């Protein structure tokens, strides 16, 4: 099954390094790359040690360093996207991390067009979230810690997209997990926050088990952990091994991007402060899985069977999560399920081979979902840390900037043209159809209707209709957030509107797909060699119409139900739905209870697993240790028994001596007689 280790590697590595000479000036650009990472790392170390003493202004150093990191990243991004780093990007090696004979891992950074796209999202949203947090966390005494963790996250996430070996990416993978753990559990005295943090880390580790095995398999079968060198080597392996590598790497992606069946940690992660939900659990870290599969596209494209699995998991997660979002009343949880659903879209796109579309949606979603989460934070602040949408309503006049920016975000996610989500989602649906994945397309259209519906339900319950009792109670004290919070909302609204048109046109050969051509081109050609040109007045135009209609249907239905009519009718409707038939009651309860996944996990892993562990401990005490102590006791008892021989009477000893002599003499005679 495995190829011989070492001999195959050396020529490969040589081929990669000799590939192409770098353009002039590339070396200067590359020297900036380590700084992009080093600045937030320095901010973390500094703030972790001195933040408490600095106190109120502890945000300054982390904020400024992240802004500087953003500026450097933009220089690198521009260079990478304009060919300044060569057609296939360029990298630098920092130091040898693990020198264990043939297992030789170096820490290196590599920038190509895909990395550049991720850098845009991570540094821009990261910077805006830092700014937003200045206002959002203004009254939290532990906010120095918050900014330290945020900087740690920025470092880890940037390492994840820049790392050039599988093990470096895995290290960053675990480090983003750590920062996520620390930030979800930021308010650690709250038990629910502590539990959610632990759950996120452990569930992620389930996926990481697969990822780690995948890395081991890559090394054993190719002899290298350099990502690019491994691609060339993997192309020469047998299909079974390649499929195993792809599936194992995908396990990691499923965990980090919270896809079914490891999706359970993400909604709980909303226990973290809202800026964290926006940055980590919507716009960046949860995209890591999408990035990983896109990065590994030369592997996945060799095994179409595995890609079907990716598409199926993705589109199933999309509809599963959307169905749950229907009935949740916690504003952040609706957004969390929406994130799961949109990530599902991205995996569906990866699975059908529409890699560029997946990255397109990743970027667009990063901006508009970041906006929506930050907006929800502003809402939550306005209504005094209330998250239940049943306690909101009619807020749009009181917090207009928040409302209008969220309005933009909602239009974008619903897929209303010409906003960002329309272009990216349509590209996913359209390519699913043209690549022959009709089932992905069909489910995708249903999910589009559902998305528009639950998002406008959110808008309706939050901003429109009559204010709830809770909202009326503090009506006069509700006011718009400070500028550090509203400015990021406005800045995020711009790409939510314009990013799609900027990157997604012209249809069929968009700017973004041109950028990413060097990364995905070979795979897309391999998967879809005879691709039809885009036909606006043909099938593709019809598909666009279907998408837009789907979005419109969801929008109108939701506003009709949850918009101007207010909330008085809502309870009656729920009662009507649950009473109407067994099926609707089941669907409603299923959605409300998140299809009982948490209960199932609790039963399996806490109740049953706990019993098993307790049983093994019993075995350890009673059987294993019992045997040891039993032997000990036996020795003591034997000693007690033998002690009786020592009677102290000379006659007894004389008898013993006599018997001994007889035995010895007898033995001697027996042996001598032979």
């Amino acid at each position: 099954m495995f190829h011989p280790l070492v001999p195959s590697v050396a020529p490969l590595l040589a081929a990669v390094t000799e590939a192409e000479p770098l353009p002039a000036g590339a070396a200067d650009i590359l020297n900036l790359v380590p700084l992009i990472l080093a600045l937030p790392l320095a901010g973390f170390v500094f703030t972790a040690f001195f933040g408490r003493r600095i106190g109120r202004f502890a945000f300054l150093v982390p904020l400024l360093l992240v802004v500087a990191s953003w500026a450097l990243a933009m220089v690198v991004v521009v260079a990478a996207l304009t060919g300044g780093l060569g057609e296939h990007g360029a990298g630098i090696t920092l130091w040898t991390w693990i020198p264990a004979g043939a297992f030789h891992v170096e820490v290196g950074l590599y920038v190509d067009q895909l990395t550049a796209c991720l850098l845009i999202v991570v540094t821009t949203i990261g910077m805006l979230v830092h700014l937003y947090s200045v206002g959002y966390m203004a009254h939290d005494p532990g906010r120095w810690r918050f900014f330290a963790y945020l900087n740690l996250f920025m470092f880890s996430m940037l390492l994840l997209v820049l790392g050039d070996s599988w093990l470096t990416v895995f290290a960053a993978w675990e480090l983003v997990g750590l920062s996520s753990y620390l930030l979800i559990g930021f308010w650690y005295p709250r038990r629910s926050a502590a539990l959610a943090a632990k759950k996120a880390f452990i569930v992620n580790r389930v996926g990481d088990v697969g990822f780690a095995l995948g890395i081991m398999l890559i090394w054993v079968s190719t002899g290298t952990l350099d990502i690019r060198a491994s691609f060339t080597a993997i192309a020469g392996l047998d299909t079974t091994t390649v499929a195993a590598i792809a599936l194992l790497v995908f396990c990691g992606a499923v965990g980090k991007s919270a896809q079914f069946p490891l999706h359970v940690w993400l909604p709980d992660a909303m226990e973290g402060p809202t800026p964290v939900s926006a940055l980590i659990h919507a716009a960046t870290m949860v995209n890591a899985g999408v990035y990983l599969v896109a990065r590994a596209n030369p592997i996945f494209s060799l095994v179409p069977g595995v890609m079907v699995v990716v598409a199926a998991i993705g589109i199933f997660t999309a509809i599963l999560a959307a169905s749950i979002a229907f009935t949740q009343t916690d504003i952040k949880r609706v957004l969390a399920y929406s994130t799961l659903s949109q990530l599902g879209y991205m995996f569906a796109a990866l699975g059908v081979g529409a890699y560029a579309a997946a990255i397109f949606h990743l970027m667009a979603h990063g901006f508009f979902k970041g906006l929506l989460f930050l907006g929800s934070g502003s809402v939550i602040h306005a209504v005094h840390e209330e998250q239940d949408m049943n306690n909101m309503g009619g807020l749009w006049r009181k917090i207009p900037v928040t409302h209008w920016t969220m309005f933009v975000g909602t239009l974008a996610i619903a897929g209303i043209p010409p906003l960002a989500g329309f272009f990216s989602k349509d590209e996913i649906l359209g390519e699913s159809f043209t690549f022959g994945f009709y089932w992905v397309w069909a489910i995708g259209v249903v999910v589009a209707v559902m998305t528009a519906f639950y998002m406008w339900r959110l808008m309706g319950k939050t901003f429109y209709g009559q204010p709830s009792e809770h909202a009326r109670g503090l009506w006069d004290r509700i006011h718009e957030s400070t500028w550090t919070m509203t400015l990021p909302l406005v800045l995020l609204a711009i790409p939510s509107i314009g990013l799609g048109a900027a990157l997604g046109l012209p249809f069929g050969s968009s700017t973004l797909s041109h950028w990413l051509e060097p990364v995905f081109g070979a795979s897309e050609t391999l998967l879809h060699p005879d691709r039809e040109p885009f036909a606006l007045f043909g099938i593709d135009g019809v598909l666009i119409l279907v998408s837009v209609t789907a979005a419109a249907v969801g929008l109108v239905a939701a506003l009709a139900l949850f918009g101007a009519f207010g909330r008085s009718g809502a309870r009656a409707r729920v009662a009507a739905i649950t009473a109407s038939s067994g099926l609707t009651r089941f669907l409603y309860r299923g959605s409300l209870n998140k299809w009982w996944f948490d209960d199932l996990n609790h039963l399996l892993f806490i109740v049953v697993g706990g019993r098993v562990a307790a049983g093994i401990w019993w075995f350890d005490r009673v059987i294993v240790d019992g045997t040891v102590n039993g032997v000990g006791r036996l020795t003591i008892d034997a000693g007690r028994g033998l002690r009786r021989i020592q009677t102290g009477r000379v006659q007894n000893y004389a008898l013993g001596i006599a018997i001994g002599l007889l035995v010895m003499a007898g033995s001697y005679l027996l042996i001598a007689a032979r």
Partner: protein
Amino acid sequence: MSIDVGTFPIVSVITFLPLVGALVVALIPRGNLAAIRGTALLFALATWVASLFLLLGYLPGRDLGPGMSFQFVEQLDWIPLFGIQYKVGVDGLSIAMVVLTTTLTWVSILASFSPIKERVKEYMVSFLILEVGMLGVFVSLDLFLFYIFWEVVLVPMYLIIGIWGGANRIYATIKFVLYTLVGSLLMLVAILATAFAYQAATGSWDGAFDLERLAGFGFDRTFQLLAFGAFALAFAIKVPMFPFHTWLPDAHVEAPTAGSVILAGVLLKLGAYGFIRFALPLFPEGAQAFAPLIIVLSVIAIIYGAIVALVQPDLKKLVAYSSVSHMGFVTLGIFIFQEQGLQGAILQMVNHGLITGALFLLVGVIYERTHDRTIAKIGGLGAPVPVYAATFGFFVFASVGLPGLAGFVGEFLVFQGAFAFNPWTAATIVFVMIFAAAYLLWMQQRLLFGPVSDFVRGLGNHLTDMKPVEILTLAPLGALTVVLGLFPGLVLDLVAGSVKAVLAAVDPSLATAIGH
């Protein structure tokens, strides 16, 4: 310093410097606690500094070629009649263990200043003699000498647990000593039998206890099986391997903090070191024959230790069972006879010493304030003692195996070695990633997070954050955890020669596969 490392007996100086310290401490009047503590620490620090010179002196001349290559060898006839020598010397593996020992010893002595208030003099003398025994094991190149040091270790540890230990200390310490003795007496028999076999074959006692002469001598297969079995039992109990591990939780729970640190940090390594240094090169065929059994037991230990750790109500027991799991990596890495695996195993020995040592120190810090180690009682420490909480969290994640900190690289190399050996072995043990996160984060959550528990609130002013001296004990371990996490090559390069030598001894065909 212009020491001619060629003739200066630096290895003996390092080994017996703590003995000199013990004698000096013994002469100090009983009541002068400051002088007793200070002198003990001073000698431990001096030994540590000397061991760093050994490290620096070794590096330039190290030989990465195959075959055993010891440096700073000192050789004196001791009992010439039987060819028993005083022969010491070091290679990269020895030095890694020596520096680990000297580091943890001064840290432990410093950490004992405040908790140990009774019979301080006897305690410090015991600790310094303990260091002599441990260092002696790591530098001995004569089997008889090795055995003497091996048993020397037992006596002070017996006293440390038995006198300064917890409520059930007598049971624990007798169990510890008797269990270890059972194994080591069998090993003594095997050592003598080996010498006799060598004498019978060569007709001379010359070199009959000399490791370098005996290694690769080629004893006949049956003899190797028996002798390896006897050695393996002694080492397996010490590591401890499943199912010989049950003395460990008892010993840890009863031992004073510094005793636990040394027990986990160094004593467990003696067994693993014994396998690598003595059992494999002396009896390669025996090792090959026993390897499947030991691999199975190691895999069981890794998973079993982690699962049992999941349900421990006592902090120290939890860390003790985590040691069973972590040491399973070491024995697995040794017996798959594979370069990455063995390098990972040795790295894991160092890392486990640092990280678990630190965790026991941290348990000690909180025990000094609470006099209780029940996880269920302690809760919400994060707010009242933030520095402690942050330090605890750091070492918890080091133990979880977070990349960038020391624990990760050793474990991953063993994973990788196991995968190359047999993918299903790796696929089994890799699940420990989940279990380790579960038991460690569960412990962390119960201890540090959530609302402050009634028990903790009841402590009032007794609950103080870390004192400077406590930070001083943990800071070097933390720094090394980061440094070895980022630059594991510091250890891997040091032991690369030893690894190749051992693998070549076990299976000459492996030496060529590695590239010699």
